[in-house]
């Protein structure tokens, strides 16, 4: 029995008596507000967050999740916030238990506090392998052999194999319940384009989560985006909300 994830928000909205969402059609992806689009994220969910170097972070969704208050969350992200900005607020609010990251970052004050207090379970992953594990999941590949980390502490506990005379380690695909991403423009179907280096992890994460939620600068009529220029095709997008970009230093 296939469960259509696209209908999940409708089901939950009816259950939770949220008339604004409940009246949406099955195929409708555009949500009216940030709070509505994150309302049903349950405790314990694993969420991917796009963004790198201050660009392409879904900061409005993160703020919405902070207001919504889901707890015991698992996070997959390149880094772990800058002060209260980006993911910082979720660590400050004690909402996160598990982290998979490449570079938690020197500015991740609240992550560091929680990590030092032993409240965070952390898996450090080389940045390109973080990408590739998500890409594999999105592409239906359960695991793959990689040369990155051979002979280092990253290889600990992983199967090693000699292929054509070179050493490789087995890396597992990485998926999530939700991907929170930021794009530049969407159409009503959910096709996405990004802006400059704000693209970074966002298109990969869109493929690797059961449900992808995107905040965008602007939502256009379906057909308004050049099909040759679309980076993330609509099949990877489940929910869309319009919100102006926010940046933290």
């Amino acid at each position, binding site marked *: 029995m296939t469960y259509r994830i696209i209908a999940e928000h409708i089901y939950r909205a009816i259950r939770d008596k949220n008339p604004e969402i409940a009246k949406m059609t099955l195929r409708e992806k555009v949500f009216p507000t940030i709070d509505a689009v994150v309302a049903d994220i349950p405790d314990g969910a694993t969420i991917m967050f796009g963004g*790198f*170097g*201050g*660009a*392409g972070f879904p900061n409005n969704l993160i703020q919405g999740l902070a207001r919504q208050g889901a707890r015991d969350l698992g996070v997959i992200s*390149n*880094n772990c916030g800058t002060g209260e900005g980006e993911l910082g607020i979720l660590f400050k609010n004690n909402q996160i238990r598990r982290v998979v*990251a*490449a*570079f*938690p*970052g020197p500015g991740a004050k609240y*992550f*560091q506090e929680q*990590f*030092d207090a032993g409240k965070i379970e*952390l898996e*450090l*992953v*080389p*940045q*390109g*392998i973080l*990408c*590739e594990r*998500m*890409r594999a999941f999105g592409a239906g590949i359960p695991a793959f052999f*990689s*040369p*990155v*980390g*051979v*002979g*280092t*502490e*990253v290889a600990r506990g992983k199967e090693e194999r000699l292929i054509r005379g070179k050493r490789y380690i087995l890396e597992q695909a990485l998926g999530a319940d939700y991907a929170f991403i930021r794009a530049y423009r969407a159409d009503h179907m959910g096709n996405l384009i*990004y*802006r*400059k*280096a*704000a*693209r*970074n*992890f*966002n*298109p*990969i994460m869109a493929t690797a989560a059961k449900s992808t939620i995107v905040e965008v600068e602007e939502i256009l009529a379906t057909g308004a985006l050049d099909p040759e220029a679309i*980076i993330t095709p609509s099949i990877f997008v489940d929910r869309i909300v319009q919100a102006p970009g926010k*940046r933290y230093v």
Partner: protein
Amino acid sequence: MSRARLTREQIAERSALELPDGAYVNLGWGIPNLIASYVPADVTVYFHSENGILGMGPRAKPGEEDFDLVDAMKVPVTLLPGGAYFSQDDAHVMTRGGHLDICILGGLQVSARGDLANWRVPGAKGAGGIGGAMDISVGAQKLIVTMEHTAKDGSPKIVSTCSYPLTAIECVDTIITDVAVLDVTPEGLVLREVAPGFTPEEVQALTEPKLRYSVHVPVMALKPR
């Protein structure tokens, strides 16, 4: 005879001479980040950034910053004609897949067989972070490490075996320090050049593994300052 070691800028200046015309290049944090300013006038190279930029240009001028166009250190940069944007996974197809001609990273330790340790000091506080260094080290066609030759306490950073957590094994091709240029070869470390004022014996004294060198080791060519 001058005994001053090279400054970080001079290490960058010497490192820039390793860049061949037309190369695709990734520069890491620290000294490598200074190298872009020293590329010789008759050489054109294309800079890669792991957040999805190829053909990255200089820092954006004050007032002209676009914070959707930043390098891996969060610094607003520019895009040169012919530059391209792509996603982080494609950026690492380029690193891991062996598409970058030269990568230059900072180092904490390099071993005689070219193992690199550059992401974590043992006993340091906090969670640490790997970033893109492991992918870059494994995939670079040529990996150059720039660093001071010795640690702050005077101990060698070029060692027989790394004691710090490793970034990658047998990955370094060339080491450029404040006293020497060295190549990692199957026969061991070869001293290619010394800094002005240094003898091969003096460089050897600052290095743990045995160095191989010829009778006349050239002195680095640097602009007088």
